[in-house]
């Protein structure tokens, strides 16, 4: 760590490594954020909301003061083929009196009102920080409401302080388990569940189209474009594929243990990963026709893209990329995607990567690449400049930083409005990289 660590907090040093410096215990990750460091992470509630909100016909009630609901209102690009209910933001909007006297009554009344005017099949009740502290027993409120109204009312225990985003994913997974468990003895069907795609810019639909191509039936979508009716069929599938491993591995494991559904991890970012994933699914199902179709389909798609990439590569070759994304799996896919474009990844970090993710990342990058866990703007600035990155791939918060540093930027976040997944996504991704890296505006900076 010599040369460029002029301004790194002592507590942060173990979370920043050179690939070559990555020996012994390796990177420190999956821990609490360093206070005051301006972490880019969100909270437990955020994680839970991200995962569950795409369930389109559920009432998502945020139990807490207004902020949590206000800042998460319809900000993501999850699409729906059916209900649009999930695009509303419902909050019990707790006030000072509620904090003093407890918010249980208000929550119960809110559910009663919902049931008076609407007939949803499921209501999710998210517990925010405050609920964890004022002692509202939302489990009890939900249970009572369930019995009273004869629908599912599922508490999501996601007070913001109870860990980081990953804990929220877990809370969401538990809620999904609670939703589907009653159906676990239903007759199995021939088909699979897609876990961990949120149908941003229609990406769930793209995966589903691929599977259709190779003759695989999709039973349940978790949770992109999911509905109550669709999601409760999940226990009848014979395989789970896990796209966003960070958020959904926990659910996949539970479903494997409790419902006997094996799972495989997949990634549909980049040609290589997409092809591998389709093949992996075909092999996992062990159906000859399916394997044959998968081979044919992936071969055809990859060769179609070859001409396209050949055209773009000269524009991109030799550029340097920095990556800062939410989960490890996405970072890994991006490194591979950049490799396909002959772009070198010089800085790579995640908000919530796990040890095993960082192991894979190390195996993919060059000696000098800097690997960061839960980094902050100050570090990103230093490392991107020191490593002369040409482009940053990241979320909304990182975009202005890249621009202020005169660095190109690729939006790879949940607000995207164009699919970046699958073969279609390769085209969009490559075009976006080209148009930002080679924009004339950088000539004047």
């Amino acid at each position: 760590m010599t040369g460029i660590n002029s301004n790194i907090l002592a507590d942060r040093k173990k979370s920043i490594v050179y690939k070559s410096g990555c020996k012994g215990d390796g990177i420190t990750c999956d821990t609490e954020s360093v206070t005051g460091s301006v972490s880019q992470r969100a909270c437990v509630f955020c994680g839970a909301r991200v995962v569950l909100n795409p369930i389109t016909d559920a009432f998502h009630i945020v139990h807490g003061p207004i902020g949590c609901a206000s800042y998460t209102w319809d900000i993501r690009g999850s699409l729906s083929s059916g209900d649009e209910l999930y695009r509303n933001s419902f909050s019990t909007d707790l006030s000072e009196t509620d904090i003093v006297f407890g918010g249980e009554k208000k929550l119960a009344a809110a559910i009663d009102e919902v049931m008076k005017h609407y007939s949803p099949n499921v209501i999710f009740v998210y517990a925010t920080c405050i609920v964890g502290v004022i002692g509202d027993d939302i489990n009890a409120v939900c249970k009572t409401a369930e019995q009273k109204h004869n629908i599912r009312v599922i508490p999501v225990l996601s007070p913001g302080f109870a860990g980081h985003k990953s804990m929220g994913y877990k809370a969401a997974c538990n809620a999904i388990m609670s939703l589907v468990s009653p159906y676990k003895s239903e007759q199995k069907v021939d088909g699979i569940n897609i876990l961990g795609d949120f149908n941003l810019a229609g990406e769930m639909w793209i995966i589903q189209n691929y599977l259709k191509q190779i003759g695989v039936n999709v039973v349940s979508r978790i949770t992109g474009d999911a509905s109550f009716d669709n999601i409760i069929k999940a226990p009848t599938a014979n395989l789970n594929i896990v796209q966003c491993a960070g958020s959904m591995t926990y659910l996949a494991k539970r479903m494997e243990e409790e419902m006997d559904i094996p799972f495989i991890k997949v990634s549909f970012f980049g040609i290589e990963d997409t092809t591998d994933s389709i093949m992996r699914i075909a092999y996992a199902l062990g159906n000859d026709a399916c394997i044959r179709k998968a081979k044919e389909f992936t071969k055809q798609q990859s060769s179609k893209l070859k001409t396209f990439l050949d055209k773009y590569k000269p524009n991109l070759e030799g550029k340097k990329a920095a990556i800062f994304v939410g989960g490890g799996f996405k970072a890994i896919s991006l490194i591979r995607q950049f490799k396909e474009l002959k772009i070198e990844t010089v800085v790579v970090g995640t908000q919530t990567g796990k040890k095993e993710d960082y192991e894979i990342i190390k195996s993919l990058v060059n000696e000098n690449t800097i690997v960061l866990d839960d980094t902050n703007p100050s570090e990103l600035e230093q490392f991107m400049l020191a490593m002369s990155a040409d482009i940053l791939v990241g979320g909304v918060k990182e975009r202005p930083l890249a621009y202020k540093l005169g660095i190109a930027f690729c939006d790879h976040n949940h607000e995207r409005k164009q699919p970046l997944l699958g073969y279609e996504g390769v085209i969009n991704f490559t075009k976006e990289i080209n148009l930002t890296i080679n924009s004339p505006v950088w000539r004047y900076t």
Partner: protein
Amino acid sequence: MGKNIVNLTINPCKMCMPMGAVSAFYGINKCMTLIHGSQGCSTYIRRHMATHYNEPIDIASSSLTEEGTVYGGEKNLINGLKNLISLYSPTVIGISTTCLAETIGEDVPRIIDNFYEQNPDCNVKIINVSSAGYEGTQYEGFFKTLCAIVKNVEMDITPNNKVNIITPLISPSDTRYLKDVFEKFGIDYVLLPDISENLDGGYIKKYNKLPDGGTKIEDIAKMGGATLTIEFSKFTHDEISAAAYLQEKYGVPYIRLPLPVGIRDTDLLIQSLEKFTGIKAPKSINKQRERYLDAMIDSHKYNAQGRAVIFGEPDFIYSASRLCCENGIVPVIVATGTRCDTLTNALDDEIKKIAKNVFVDEYKILSNTDFDLIESEALRLGANIMIGSSDARRIEEKHGITLIRCAFPIHDQIGGQRVRTFGYDGSLDLLDRITNALLFKKDSSFRENLYNEFYKGDKYISTSKSKTFSQKAMERTVTHPCYNACGTENARMHLPIAPKCNISCNYCVRKFDCPNESRPGVTTKVLTPQDALEKYKVAKEKVPHLSVVGIAGPGDALANWENTKNTLSLIRAYDPDVTFCVSTNGLMLPMYADEMVSLGVTHVTVTCNAVNPSVGSKIYRYINYMGTKYEGETGAAILMANQLSGIKMLCERGAMCKVNIVMVKGINDFHIEEIVDTVKSLGVFMTNIMPMIPVAGSVFENMPLTNNKELTLLRNKCGQSLKQMYHCKQCRADAIGTLEGDQSIDFQDYQSDSNKEQIEKVRFAVISKSGILVDQHFGHATQVYIYDYENGEAKYIEKRSCKKYCEGQENCDDKFDKFEEIVKSMKDCKAVLCMRIGDIPSKKLAEQGIKVITTYDKIETAIAQSIKDYRRELI
């Protein structure tokens, strides 16, 4: 939604206190903010601000964890401060507490003392503001923070000539305006806060992660000795007002001015400054005023059409409303999510006057409200423009009401930091945006509107040409089951790939397939073009004589042109021989007729229910043409003109056109012969007159039914001039097979035990897909909802799956079996509610004492209504 639910805030029109605190701290020089709470608060606020300002937003968090929550967050806060100082070297740190910190009772002043004790060399000014999210909105949070800043700075009370300026959250651009105007008057001022640079920085070679704009602490220290404070707010409270505090503590007098928006309030500012300085406003300002006034006059007539929804923080909506009022735009809704009791008083007289002028009877001033209410009121009061943040973008998207984005936060457009509303120039900017939006609406429709309204020439009748159907079309007609009544062995396949519709017919209940083309009330699962091809491949193998592929909805084929085109191309590549048939309402026909023909579409069905706009306007509620909604005769006229010119184009290109006409008694029955003659003159091959089926829930639900006799009579009459279709089956949008072989409900010979036991309460069987509405055709039920009506209430009892009655009979005839199952599952019911039902099953149910009620409504409402309507039969 619009149900006025009181215990839930639906789509909030406000944010929380820390948001206001952070924004205020951003206007202090070299200040970093730390939010004392869990990590999410800081991240959410950063994201919200980053998309609005397009600036890096660095806000630290004390990242409170479970441990901190239980044992207190002191350790986190102190370490956080240390880390923050080491990373950013700020001169000021603002600490904003959160719901969490306040609720666990964090004593932040004490923690700050401890911090200074542990770090005696630290000379960073730490300012704490208590800002629990549940205590108020960002509006109060902002003022409260300014107050905390003033209270925490040691004042130099030596009298000086300075004027203190205090603002609510305004844009960086408007901040620059204020500075400029004070400078023009030569006034030495202290502006609190000054976000003009920190939230709208330029590009510089070396990025500075802690920008150096903003008000300096040493300047704030002079506020105690200033000669005057001007606080730009009509609605702040004394207890959170820095101006009030400065007066009370240091004797600095203050005045409160509204934001300088619009002519009156900018005048007020300029006059106040003239009075204060004793000098006249510079010429440049007068010139600006002249130009604004000139513009007001130039656009007043356009503005008079404006009916505005204005929402956001109290000071903003007050000013924007006054700007609207002085320009003749009626604010029909003024709304804030903040609790603001004085808002009505401040605006009511003014709006009343303006509304009265143009005979607008109703307007609403709403405080402490949410977008759920704003949305339903906006529709009710006929708003045509919205002014505020981007939070109303969903209403814009849903209802086509243009939104002028000019307040924080703006997430979906750039330039939030540059929004100008202050002064004569800023007001002019805002006014121009509003006027232009209104003009655009008018301008993009007036030609068609006027043409359609007044041009009554014989535009539709062209001289009849000899029909020249292409050879291909003629050959294919022989094998098309719809066009060739005898060719019943030929099968067709409808591919449901077109979900959207671009017109609204009064006999139609949206949510379901087009009743023109499908059996009413049938909801079809929509396929993608790829799926459609796969389905076709399978069908081709299994269905003998499959000769025609049709696109008939479930919406309109041409409203989904990409899907239609892709589907046809894919299938054509697979099967060069198949005949393509497309059904449409014809609105987009002129645009796609050429492409259709070149894709090999040989048969087109267009539904024309009128050739006269005044008749048409009774059938079509509205049309949605090129992104604009047209209603009444205008809409009908555009539709008709397009249908007819489209049909003409198709016929000229050799396609075989059939025209469907839905016969609505009392509306267009007298007019149908004219339709037939008109389309005949264009070269149409045949017409298909169909009876309108009154679908419950549709505008025409209570219209009389057309009986077969009347229908046949009319068909015969029209048959004298043009070939008529007598064999229409009104197929589903996903029908497969021959016309005769595709009846999805076949109820020929079922048997079932009747159960007529009398009960006190009334049990209903409800056929519902959604479980909320009676929204399913009886024949398509896979489940039955059971409800009991008792003591004036409809109670949900259970959901019965029809499948469970089918155990052990896997090989039996599906359709027959299904019906029997359903009947079994409702044996104990007095009545069944469904959206539609066939005649035979309806009769059979009646035979068993089960009353059949068709409706389309919320289940509970439908049950209550049924009791009302059929009390004697049911109880």
